[in-house]
Each structure stands twice: as C-alpha cells, then as structure tokens.
C-alpha cells in the first residue's frame, strides 16, 4: 500500500517537473490581463466598447477582463503608478474637446513626445526619437502649409507604430428647444459642436423666452479665472472673462479683446487692445490689466494652473496706443491658441491685492473665495448655488452683447433627469449629454420642437496600451491588437452610429490638419491573427503564446 502510494507520488512529481521544463523550453503563455475602464455611469458607450473589445481580443487567445472602476482609481493606476508598480496593460481613455485643442500641437506634442513619457501625458511610454523630432519641428514651424506636412507625417508615424488603438471620434450631441430659440441660430464650432461662446452670443430667444438654461452632469467646482478644474468650469469662466483672442467657429484664433495682432518677428508679437472696454464694475480695461493678467500666472506658486501657458513669454511691454508687445523665448506656432486665447483677462485693481495677500500663506489663487467675480466678458456673474445652478446675466456694455438676458447652468447629476428636464422645458439647451444618442434621437423625433446638432468631436476615444510592458513593447503585437478591433462595430455597436472612425489624434473636424485617408484601414480578426502568426506568436490550448525565446519581463 505504502509502496503504491509513493510510486504514484513520484510519478506525479516527475510529470509536474517535466511539464515545467517543456513549457519553459517552448513559448511562454501571455498572461491574463485587465482592460481598465471607467464605470458605466461615466459613459455607457466607452464602457460597452470595452466589453466588446475584451470579447473580441479573447478570440485571439488572450484572456482579458474589463475592470471598470471610478476615475481616481483608474487614473491613479495608469498615470501615477507608471513609475513604480506599473501593472496596467490596457486602458480605455479619452481626450475631450476644448477650444484650444483646435490646434494640433497640444495632442501631437504632449501625448507622444518622449519628454512627457515619465510624468507627463505620454503615459503609454511611447519613446521614438524620430517622432520627437517631428513633434518639436511642427511646434516652431510658423508656416501653416509646411506645418501641415509635418503634422501629416506625425499622424502616419504614430499609425505605423500603432502607438494607440484609436477607436472613434464621437459625434457631439447638443440640442436646444426650438420653441424657445430660433431654429438655426446656434453656431457650430469646428470640433466643439454648438456648445460654444458663439452660440451663447448669437442664439436668439423667441416666444417670450429670455434665458438660456444649460445643464451639466458634472459638478461645477469653481468659477475662478485662475483655476481650471472639472470639465464644465472653463465653459463658464470663458464667458465671464474675456481673452485677447478667441478660437473662432472655424477653429482658428481670431481677435477678440485684441483689436488686432501683428507678428513683428517669429518671437515678437504686438497686440492692440480693443478700446472702450470696461470691467463689470464699470472701470475701463487697460493695457496694465492685460499685462497683469499675463504676469500673474508667471508666479507658478500663486497661479499654478495657468503657468504653463505663459511659460514661453520672456517679457511684455506697453508700447502705447493700447499696444502690448509680447517677447517670446522661442517661436511657437500654437502661441495664439494656447496662450493669447487661453489666458483670462482680469482687472488688476481687484485681483492684485488678492494675489498679494496670498504670498507666503501656502495657499494659491485656486483657494480664493470670490466675493465678486469681475471680468469684462459678455456675461456677468449673478449667483451660484453649489450642486444646483449658476446664473449669469447679459453684459449690455460688451462690444458683442449676447441676445439672451440670462445664461443659467443647472447641475443635474444624471442623464435621465437631465433629459427629463430638457423635455419638460426646465432646461432649454442640452449642453452635456453623455447618454445614449439613440435615446436622444428618438426623443427629438417624438417631441418635434427640438433641434439636434451633431458634430464631430475634436477629441477622441481610444484604447491605450502600456508600451513599457511586454507584449505591448512589440509593435506587431500592438498592431494586431489594434487591428483586431473592428472599427465599424465600434461605431455602430458601441457608439450606436454616433461616431466616426478614428485613425489618428487629429480629428476630421480639424479639416486642415487631419490627414486624409488615415481612418481608412483594414481591420478584422483574421488580419490580426495573420500579423501575430507572422511575428511568431502561437496559439496553444486556446491561449496565445509569445514567440520562441521571448519571455515576459516582470
């Protein structure tokens, strides 16, 4: 009996050892992986996309499960822990639309330049000197045509490297009640849709309506000219505080509080301030105020959020006749967009004492508790009840006064209630809809007095891969993973037809810089399998294995 038992035991152990040697001698199985995603409520479409992608990739022999968690957990893991733990493999990610993103520089440089790989937005760890050179060069190329060539090259380069699995540029869905606003009076801005300052200025209230009642799903965290926080805040700050330039409906910067601007040379620009402007408290807007507005962020301790946007400014000087000269440290093609159209103009007489009082307290401008919010913009601040609503009113003294009397934004924490209020007319402009576009389309059809405007987003949705970790360090593997995902399924199934395929970080909404044909590529499981097979990956027992000799680095 005892003998028998030991014989069995020996047999068992030896077979165990044998299998160990056999497996280590041949290819290693690719580990089970998680696809990080945000929880469903944060956005149903990307969530569904993640589920479909996991289901698809598993057919390649991978073992991927979706790990849906709130943003702080997901971003902490992907972004902050990249230097120590670095355990993530795949994550859903998105870049949202903002006016300054109409210039391709922000995405091209910050998302992919190697200098941002360690701590910046290049969290995927894409490092390629050739690409770095492209990104740096487009930044200093002032001639649009020459720059267009460079941006095209950059897009192609990233596509070849399969840096990201770009999925879609969603269609932005904004809608307004055309029984309260004149149909067609909203203005569409490239890549942003009709939710923009131009709409707020031009939309014509009718039938006795005076107010534009917008809505936000996210909580408004601050209304502060020195602070950018949640995604909604900047939509409010930018209409209370003017900027020298604004991104126009066509996506290019155009004079606003500046009457005109003039490049003296590649590193010097003269800006002429519009005359006759006044602050909401009645005092005139002066060149001093402009210089103060740009100098304040230079003190990164006090105004940290805006300091990156003035970093390139060497000095400023008043040239008389309302002219301010900006001397730059280096030439920068995006300067108009990322600085002049970004910095809020603030009254020196009101904010200087406030900022001075902050010196040495350890607090910064973000912690200002505003008694008054004084800008010079087309809307004046009236009231804000947190987690309820913000009320602004028309600034009649503005050089471009809005047609509505009041601009109100209700904070409604869920899509269903938002939609319900919109249908009831409690909200007359749907400015934040993260729900199912099919539902919205159905409602538009049912209600009959809703104007729905769909626009291609300047932002995009993608699946990021961790280049630092095998097997994603292999371009073939990345390509296979990316191409396995059927983009038509993404568009039609996950986004319910409410998106266009993405092939690069430059949206088709930016007609000038978008590379033609970059979204035309073949996808499919067969293609992916072929790429993997050609690169030496094998499938055993239904699981994908590394090519011979390649081992997972842990």
């Amino acid at each position, binding site marked *: 009996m005892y003998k028998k038992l030991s014989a069995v035991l020996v047999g068992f152990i030896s077979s165990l050892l044998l299998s160990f040697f056999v497996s280590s001698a041949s290819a290693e199985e690719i580990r089970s992986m998680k696809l990080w995603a945000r929880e469903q409520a944060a956005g149903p479409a990307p969530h569904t996309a993640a589920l479909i992608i996991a289901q698809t990739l598993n057919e390649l022999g991978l073992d991927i499960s979706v790990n849906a968690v709130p943003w*702080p957990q997901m971003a902490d893991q992907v972004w*902050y822990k990249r230097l120590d733990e670095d355990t993530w493999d795949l994550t859903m990610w998105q870049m949202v639309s903002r006016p300054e993103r109409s210039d391709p520089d922000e995405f091209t440089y910050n998302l992919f330049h190697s200098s941002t790989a360690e701590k910046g937005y290049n969290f995927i760890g894409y490092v390629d000197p050739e690409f770095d050179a492209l990104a740096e060069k487009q930044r200093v190329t002032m001639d649009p045509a020459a720059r267009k060539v460079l941006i095209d090259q950059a897009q192609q380069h990233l596509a070849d490297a399969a840096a990201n699995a770009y999925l879609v540029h969603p269609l932005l869905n904004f809608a307004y009640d055309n029984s309260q606003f004149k149909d067609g009076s909203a203005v569409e801005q490239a890549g942003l849709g009709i939710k923009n300052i131009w709409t707020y200025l031009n939309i014509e209230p009718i039938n006795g309506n005076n107010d534009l009642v917008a809505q936000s799903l996210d909580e408004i965290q601050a209304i502060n000219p020195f602070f950018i926080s949640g995604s909604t805040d900047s939509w409010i700050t930018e209409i209370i505080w003017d900027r020298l330039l604004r991104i126009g409906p066509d996506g290019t910067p155009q004079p606003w509080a500046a009457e005109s601007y003039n490049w003296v040379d590649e590193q010097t620009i003269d800006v002429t301030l519009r005359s006759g402007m006044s602050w909401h408290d009645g005092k005139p807007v002066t060149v001093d105020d402009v210089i103060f507005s740009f100098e304040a962020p230079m003190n990164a301790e006090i105004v*940290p959020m805006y300091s990156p946007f003035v970093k390139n400014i060497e000095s400023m000087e008043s040239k008389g006749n309302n002219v301010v000269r900006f001397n730059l440290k280096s030439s920068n093609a995006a300067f108009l967009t990322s600085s002049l159209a970004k910095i809020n103009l603030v009254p020196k007489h009101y904010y200087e004492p406030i900022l001075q009082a902050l010196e040495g307290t350890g607090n910064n401008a973000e912690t200002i508790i505003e008694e008054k919010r004084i800008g010079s913009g087309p809307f004046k601040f009236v009231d804000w009840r947190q987690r309820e609503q913000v009320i602004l009113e028309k600034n009649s003294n503005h050089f471009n006064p809005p047609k509505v009397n009041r601009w*109100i934004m209700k904070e409604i924490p869920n899509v269903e209630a938002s939609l319900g*209020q919109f249908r009831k007319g409690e909200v007359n402009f749907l400015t934040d809809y993260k729900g199912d576009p099919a539902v919205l389309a159905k409602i538009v059809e049912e209600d009959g007095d809703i104007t729905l405007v769909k626009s291609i987003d300047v932002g995009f949705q993608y699946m990021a891969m961790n280049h630092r970790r095998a097997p994603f360090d292999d371009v073939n593997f990345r390509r296979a993973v990316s191409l396995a995902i059927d983009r038509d399924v993404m568009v039609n199934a996950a986004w319910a037809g409410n998106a266009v395929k993405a092939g690069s970080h430059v949206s088709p909404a930016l007609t000038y810089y978008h590379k033609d044909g970059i979204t035309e590529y073949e996808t499919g499981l067969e293609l992916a399998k072929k790429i993997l097979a050609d690169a030496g990956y094998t499938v055993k027992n239904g699981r994908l294995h590394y090519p011979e000799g390649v081992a997972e680095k842990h």
Partner: protein
Amino acid sequence: MFDFWSIIRRFLYMIFVLWVVATIIFFMFRLMPGSPLTAFIGTTFTDEQHDLLVKRFGLDKSLFEQYTLFLLNTLKGDFGLSFTYNKPVIDMIVEALPNSIILTLFSLIIAYIFGVIAGAYLAWKRDTLIEGVSIPIVLTTRSAPEFWLGMIALAFFSFQLDIFPSGGTSAAGVIYETTLSKLTSLHFYYHLILPSLVLALYLQGLPLLLMRSNMLEVMQEDFVTMSKMKGLSSWRIVIYHAARNALLPVATAFTLGVGFAFGGNVVIETVFSWPGLGRLLVFAVSSSDYPLAQGAFIFLTAILILMNFLADLMYLFLDPRVSYKTKN
C-alpha cells in the same frame, strides 16, 4: 443616569465614539485605491504643478503627521479645504446641511403622521380584511428600493404627468437670497414634495408597524380595561390612553430615524438632484476628495450619535417612569 454629570459623561463618550469613527474613516480614505490628484491630470499638467498639489494637500507628510494634523484641525472645527472645490469643507457642509435636514424632517414627519394614524387604525381593525390587505402592502413598500420608487415616481409624476418638478430645489433662474428665504419659499416646498413623498413612502412602514404592535400590546394592558370599566368612550380610550402610551417607542424611533435617514438619503438625493449632504459625500468619495469626504462623514456620524442620544433624552421627557428611576 440623566443627572448633570452623567450627561457630561455621556457627551464625552460621544466625542470618544466620534474620534474612533473619524480615525477609522481617516485611514480608510488614505489607504483606499485611487488618488485625489487624478482630478488634475491634463495635457498641460506639469510636474511642478503636481508637486505643488501634493504639498498643498499635505500628502508629502507621513501618514501619522497627516493624522495628527487632521485631529488637531478637526478639534478646532477646521475640516480643511476640499481638494476639488478649494473651499473650506465646513462651508460646503453648512450649505448642504439645511437641504438635507429639511428633506429628512419633512419626509419623516409625513411618514410618522401617516404611520401613527394608520398603525393605530390597523390595530383597531385587527383581524379584519382591511388588516389582511394592508399589512402585506405596507411590508411591500418597505421592501422596494428607494431609488427604484424614485425612478418610477419621477417617470410618472414628473415626466409623464408633469405635476411636479423633476429635481433640484428650484427652477432655473430662481435665486434664494439667503438660506432663510429659501426655507420660507413656497417654490422650495413645491420642489420638496416629490422626493419627500417617495422617502416617506419608504419610511412609513416602520412607524406604522411599530404603532400597530404597540397599540395591540397597550390595548391588552390593565389600565385600558380599567378605562372601559370606567365607562369612557372608545375614542377616548384609544386616543387618550392607548395611543399616548403606544407613542412612546414611536417617538424614540422617530429620533433614531432622523439620524438614520440622514445617511440613507444619499440615494434619493441622487435621483432627485437634491443638493444634500449625502450627495456631497458620494461625490467626495468617488473623487477621492479626502477632506470633504471626511467632513461629510463625520457630520453624518455626529448627527447619528446625537440623535441616538436625543432618543434617550426623549424617553426621559415622554415616559415619567424613566425620569422617576433617574431621580432615585
């Protein structure tokens, strides 16, 4: 048990409990996955900005240092600045608190008035068809998830019939100058009706069943029989004697209910976009806003403990038997 010194002792003990809870919560937040800094991630977010944030949030200090600082500040009534709002947490709580209090009290009062009357009635109607039908219905209302009831109420009364507004404390553009003017505005109560009715529907089961069983119990008491012998009218017996006695535990349940409902309102506040303390907590937790989450949680705890304490005190005033024991 209720002389001056024991109340003081009880009070100190409450502070002890609060301290323990605060400590547990502090460490749970610090050790939970996710980082408050993720809210600031952006394409232009720089390393210097990151370091500044870490310093300002005090995250560069050791956990122990952070904890002692937190305790000291909390003792001073300073809950710190919210990471996301950059506002003093206490201000945000003070802003949200009246909304929560009104919603809680309003629905509890509706629930208890209805529950007490219906409970007494059902006790009176014991072993009748009415009772046979009502009890399962009451138990069912207590079994339905609040948010589900809220969803249905919202779909039906607001979106379909358009009788009530669908959320918030006011229509767009309505300004309440002060908290007082808000709390005295009819417009505010119009917005309060639907959420508090849904909440009351959920809450009425407890007082109803409690009142009913107390009534049944009290109706068996000798003094009720004596009242019958005295030739008093049924109404007088039921209301003046039976109900008055049966109300004692219900009153305590009400007080406990205030503390409890406060924390439980999170769900209703979310469905009806009600700017209360619960929603503040949910927001704070999901965005890792430690100071705000801690502040909101400690406040909810303090209210709960205080209400537990008040429930005991209440017995003192309502039941002469208890106060008698305390005097001796």
